[in-house]
Structure formats: C-alpha cells, structure tokens
C-alpha cells in the first residue's frame, strides 16, 4: 500500500501530515520533496546512511569524433552543441544515453555526475528515507525515481514535492491513495483545485485535509462538499501546533493531536476499504 501526501504549494503542512501519520501507524516514510526535504527534522532517524545519486553524462573522445553532429540533433534537451567540437551543458543533460546510442564511431563514453543523495535511517523501528538534490542542480527526477524504486509492498507514506509538476507526477505513479493537504485561503483553494484535477486524471482515490482551520464554513469546505470530495480531516489553526512545529516535534506526542491523526487514519482506512 502506498499513500502519497501532496499540496498545491509549499508550507501547507504536507510534511506535518505525512510524518505524523507515518509515525502513528509505524510505516515507512519517504521524503520525495528533494528540493527541500524536512521530514527528518521531525522523525529524527538514527544511524543515517547516505548514498550519492549520479546520472550518466556523455564525454566525447575527440580523437574518435568525426563531427557528424548526430549526437547534437538527437538530444531532446538541447544539452549538446557542436562548434569545432562537441560541448556538453551538463545541467541540461538528463542522462538519457541517446547521444551515445547514435554516435557512429562510439566516441561517446559516459561519466557519472553526482546530483544529490539519498539518506536512510530508522526512527525507532520505522524506516525513513529522504532524497536531497544538490543546491543549483535543476533535475530532481532521477532522485525521485531512485526513491520510488526503493519502495516494495510494505506500506509507505510518500511526502511529495509541492505543486503539480513532473516531480509530483513521478511519485504519484502507482500509489493507492492520495492525501491533499490545503489551507482555507483563496490561494490554497486555487492550488487544491489543480491538485484535484491531477489525481482525478491519474485515477487515484483521494481525500482532503484542511490545515490551519479557524472557522467551519469556508470556501474550501464548501468546494469539497459541492464537488463530493471527501474531507478526511482538519487541523486547527492553533498556537500549540506552531510551537511544536518550530521545535521540530511530532504533533502526535500530544494526546489531543494523536486523537486527531488517529481519526484521520480511520477515515483513510474507511476510504480505501481496509486497515493498515
């Protein structure tokens, strides 16, 4: 079972929801928000092992190159250019290997270029994984794919990147349920609608959690009701939560919030029709 937690934009409480739920039911947690992973701050895993992630980039042996430019023409990402020799713009290279495949003289070899890392550790006996993209690197995809590849059939909660780009679509592939975290603001609603459209297109069952809720009737709740969207929980707008968050503490340490996440969990179990 895979459950993905998403949000239209950063800072809506995606990590709060995913870390607390994962810890509550003691399942594997994966932080796919590789540009700003912060799940480990709350889960505090021990014995962290770190592995570098690299992508294969082409390197041209100039003695073998016959300047046919086939490699330049095949590259979909405009990462190669030919002047009097082939030049690589490594930050645009996706490591797809197409250039190497078309080179008639086998002048292209591949070299590994590190773009980030994956860390694994344990919070008590709960497995925690997190990917980090190196600063200034533009391509999160390869790290997210690696992380996804580390998931087996054990129940896993996936903390996704904010937004609805390919960095969100990738982790969503193959998930069984999606939790959309939002805020009851106008911007929050706008982003929520985009996220709803995405999960509906991908045919993933989903429910909404409204974070920082201060009054019961708001445009977001109304939208969910009108659109038959299941609100699986709300998190109140309250000072205690902000204080716990700022100290890097999980909310389920406090009994009343633990109850809140337990209720959310039973709503999810009801929605997917089985218990986790």
């Amino acid at each position: 079972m895979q459950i993905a937690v998403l949000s239209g934009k950063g800072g809506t409480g995606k990590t709060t929801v995913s870390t607390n739920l994962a810890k509550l039911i003691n399942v594997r947690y994966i932080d796919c928000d590789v540009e700003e992973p912060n799940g480990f701050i709350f889960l505090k895993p021990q014995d962290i092992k770190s592995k570098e992630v690299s992508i294969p980039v082409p390197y041209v042996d100039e003695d073998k190159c016959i300047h046919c430019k086939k490699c330049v023409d095949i590259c979909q990402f405009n990462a190669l250019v030919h002047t009097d020799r082939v030049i690589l713009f490594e930050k645009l290279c996706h490591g797809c290997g197409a250039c190497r495949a078309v080179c008639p003289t086998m002048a292209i070899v591949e070299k590994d270029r590190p773009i980030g890392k994956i860390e694994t550790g344990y919070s008590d006996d709960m497995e925690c994984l997190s990917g980090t993209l190196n600063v200034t690197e533009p391509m999160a995809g390869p790290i997210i794919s690696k992380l996804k590849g580390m998931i087996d059939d054990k129940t896993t909660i996936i903390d996704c990147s904010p937004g609805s780009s390919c960095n969100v679509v990738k982790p969503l592939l193959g998930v069984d349920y999606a939790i959309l975290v939002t805020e009851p603001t106008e911007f929050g609603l706008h982003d929520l609608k985009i996220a709803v459209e995405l999960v509906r297109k991908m045919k993933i069952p989903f429910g909404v959690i409204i974070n920082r809720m201060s009054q019961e009737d708001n445009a977001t709740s109304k939208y969910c009701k009108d659109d038959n969207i299941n609100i699986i929980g709300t998190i109140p707008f309250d000072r205690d939560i902000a204080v716990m968050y700022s100290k890097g503490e999980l909310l389920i340490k406090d009994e009343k919030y633990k109850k809140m996440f337990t209720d959310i969990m039973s709503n999810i179990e009801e929605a997917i029709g089985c218990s986790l």
Partner: protein
Amino acid sequence: MKICISSTVDSINGLADGRFGRCPFYAIYDDETKEYEFVENEGAKAAQGAGIKAAQIVVDNGVDVVITGSLGPNAIRVLQAGNIKIYKMLGDKVKEQVGYYNEGKLISIDKPGASHMGIGK
C-alpha cells in the same frame, strides 16, 4: 563575413528582437553579397536550452557576428567557443543594425543578461 541579428519577423523592415534564444527569426547578412537571409529559430519553443539551440543555429550558418539584446550564459559560452563576436543592438529596426556595426557604434556583450534557461531551476 556574416552578421546575424535576432528578429521578430522575417523582414529587414521589422523590429529586431532583444531575446537571443527566444526570437522567432534570425536575419543573417552576408557582407560579400550584401544580402539578408532569414532563418527560423526552431529552438524558440524549447522547454530547455533555447539559447543553446539558437547558438547552434548561428554556428551552423557560419556567422561571425551576432547582434542582439541579451543572452544567457550558456548561449554566450557556445558563441565564444565558436569565435563569434556578440554586440548589443541599438534602436529597434533590423536593417539599421549592420550600419551601426560598421560605424563601430555597437557595444560588445560578454556577460549574460536575464537568463530564461535551465539554470538553478
């Protein structure tokens, strides 16, 4: 010698385009034949690396001088690797640029302007 001007349309009476990588056409002037040739910029709509693609088009056309508004760092790197000189356009018409260039009025560009390419993000 060939001079390339980034252009908004395929006519010398049209406006020069300040965007090197995303302009729709390149006006390429040959100072031997005194004629202009217009080349479409296939890279204009590329999601990534438009400047690189554009620089490749310019290199492939045997251009010696580029006149434009601003370029990203990648495009500059390609043009410099191809020994192509880069100048900042003056005024707005395509057909005026070669005159400015011959009169020595244009300032050379060696640093990137606002980039729209895959840097940082």
